């Protein structure tokens, strides 16, 4: 293998709900070998489990499949492979949906791979019988309290099964809950033949994955010096040029908007970072204090020096559970005395809800006056009385009916409360389920992944 070989990897989706323009433009506007897409957040799996309960063929990211419909012809023409954790709790259902789309497009010779085995919801009792504790990683609490309301349980699996799918010739690989960096580490291992014990290389790939995983957040999005960022509307999603030695350049396609410099890349490295010396992942532990960044021409940042070590013997598990309901409604109060009137409005609301027979306990009530520095509480002083505030009022409860009473009593404040209320255009708020998040660990030897590759 030539040391000069360069592999181009992009991220076109930083989160479930990111702009569709990202992937569409990445496959059209410049050269690319791999398009990775991140569809998962903590609560996503819980939502997808509910969809699957209602419809056994659902439970994956349907908008991924619709996006594929638009990019597949170009991907086939240019030889771009797609890797996404869009399979949710039903990678097989996702596989079938992609097969339908490929057939509808009249395409042939497309190999689709899926990775299964991350979903352990049905195995929890036997895993606990075998000694797994699933204690809450954040606070050490015992899992017993949520066992009967658990709605999803997924293992953050690593790169290996994705590598296996690529080795079997997959053009598209869909996983359930794999870590975001794994989507990037896998094609590097596949292309460069890295060993699963070469922890410095795997750490370099992990750092690459961390830089890429939020899409345009490393190319000028959400960056402090925003006035220096040209053409936000056409912001370029990130592309890395990866080398076999583990070094890489972060850049974006020629002619796109946005900005890639040491500061925009550093900003993304800082995002959701914990202990930088021990950045834990399924395939290695990465040391972010070894990363070296340097500007390598316009909109190019070179990354080198990354060191890693062996991973821990456990995988992280993401569990979710049903934890009642929440509701927030909004009314705008204008001045004079906007703050006083908004507070009065909120207290009238809670008093009226109580008149239906069951008051909402004080501790479950929520009142926030947006426009009074709620995001900078105690940090930025309110210089003068605001002439308008947004009252955000709501509650948490296990009683959905109680929250619906609050919802219906909100609008009447306009005609039967203090003067100066407007902005009810958003309509009556609805209670939504609270999805509790429960991070835990599992012994790696207890998890079995499966790879299926099928050709259309």
């Amino acid at each position, binding site marked *: 293998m030539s040391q000069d070989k360069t592999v181009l990897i992009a991220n076109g989706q930083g989160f479930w709900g990111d702009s569709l323009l990202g992937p569409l433009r990445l496959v059209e506007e410049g050269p690319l070998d791999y398009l990775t897409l991140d569809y998962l957040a903590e609560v996503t799996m819980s939502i997808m489990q509910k969809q699957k309960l209602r419809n056994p063929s659902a439970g994956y990211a349907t908008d991924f499949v619709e996006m594929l419909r638009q990019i597949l012809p170009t991907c086939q023409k240019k030889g771009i492979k797609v890797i996404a954790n869009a399979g949710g709790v039903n990678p097989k259902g996702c596989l079938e949906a992609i097969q339908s789309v490929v057939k509808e497009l009249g395409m042939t010779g497309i190999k689709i791979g899926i990775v299964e085995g991350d979903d352990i919801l049905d195995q929890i009792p036997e895993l606990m019988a075998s000694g797994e504790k699933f204690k809450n990683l954040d606070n050490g609490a015992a899992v017993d309290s949520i066992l009967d309301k658990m709605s999803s349980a997924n293992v953050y699996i690593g790169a290996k099964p994705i590598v296996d799918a690529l080795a079997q010739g997959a053009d598209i690989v869909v996983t359930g809950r794999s870590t975001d960096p794994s989507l990037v580490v896998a094609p590097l291992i596949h292309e460069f033949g890295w060993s699963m014990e070469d922890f410095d290389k795997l750490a370099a790939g992990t750092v690459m994955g961390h830089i890429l995983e939020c899409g345009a957040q490393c190319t000028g999005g959400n960056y402090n010096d925003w006035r220096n960022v040209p053409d936000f509307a056409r912001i370029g999603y990130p592309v890395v040029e990866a080398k076999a030695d583990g070094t890489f350049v972060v850049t974006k396609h020629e002619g796109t908007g946005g900005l890639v410099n040491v500061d925009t890349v550093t900003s993304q490295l800082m995002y959701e970072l914990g202990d*930088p010396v021990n950045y834990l992942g399924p395939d290695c532990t990465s040391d972010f204090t070894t990363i070296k960044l340097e500007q390598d021409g316009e909109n190019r940042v070179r990354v080198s020096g990354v060191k890693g070590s062996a991973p821990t013997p456990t995988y992280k598990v993401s569990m979710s559970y049903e934890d009642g309901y929440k509701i927030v409604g909004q009314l705008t109060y204008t001045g004079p005395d906007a703050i006083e009137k908004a507070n009065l409005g909120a207290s009238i609301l809670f008093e009226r809800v109580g008149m239906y027979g069951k008051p909402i306990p004080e501790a479950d009530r929520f009142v926030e006056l947006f426009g009074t520095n709620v995001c900078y509480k105690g940090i930025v002083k309110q210089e003068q009385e605001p002439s308008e505030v947004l009252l955000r009022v709501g509650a948490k409860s296990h009683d959905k009916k109680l929250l619906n009473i609050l919802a219906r009593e909100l609008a009447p404040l306009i005609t039967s409360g203090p003067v100066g209320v407007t902005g009810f255009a958003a309509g009556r708020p609805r209670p939504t389920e609270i999805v509790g998040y429960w991070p835990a660990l599992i012994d790696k030897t207890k998890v079995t992944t499966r790879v299926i590759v099928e050709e259309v």
Partner: protein
Amino acid sequence: MARVQLFDVAIARSGDKGDGSNVGIKARTPELYEFLRENLTTAVVKDHFKEICFGDVKRYELPNLQVLNFILEDSLGGGGTETLIMDAQGKVHSLALLHMEMDIPDALLA
């Protein structure tokens, strides 16, 4: 000495970590990094966020990137999925930190 906001000497980014947040701050020069490493202590940050952060503040150093990484425990009103507050994920804790004023030697501000 000049009294300036950290906006003038650093950039920052923040996000959620369970029921807390992380705030990474990058000094604009190596000299400013040394100054912030000396002066931007966990006690100073905890006091700055006293009405937002109700848990411990931890700090990690990344001299290679001129970055200090702060963990603000119990700062999201109950955690990313359960909280009702506007800044549910601590997205602007970064800018909240950069509002801090500090007396910084003139030589570092050139």
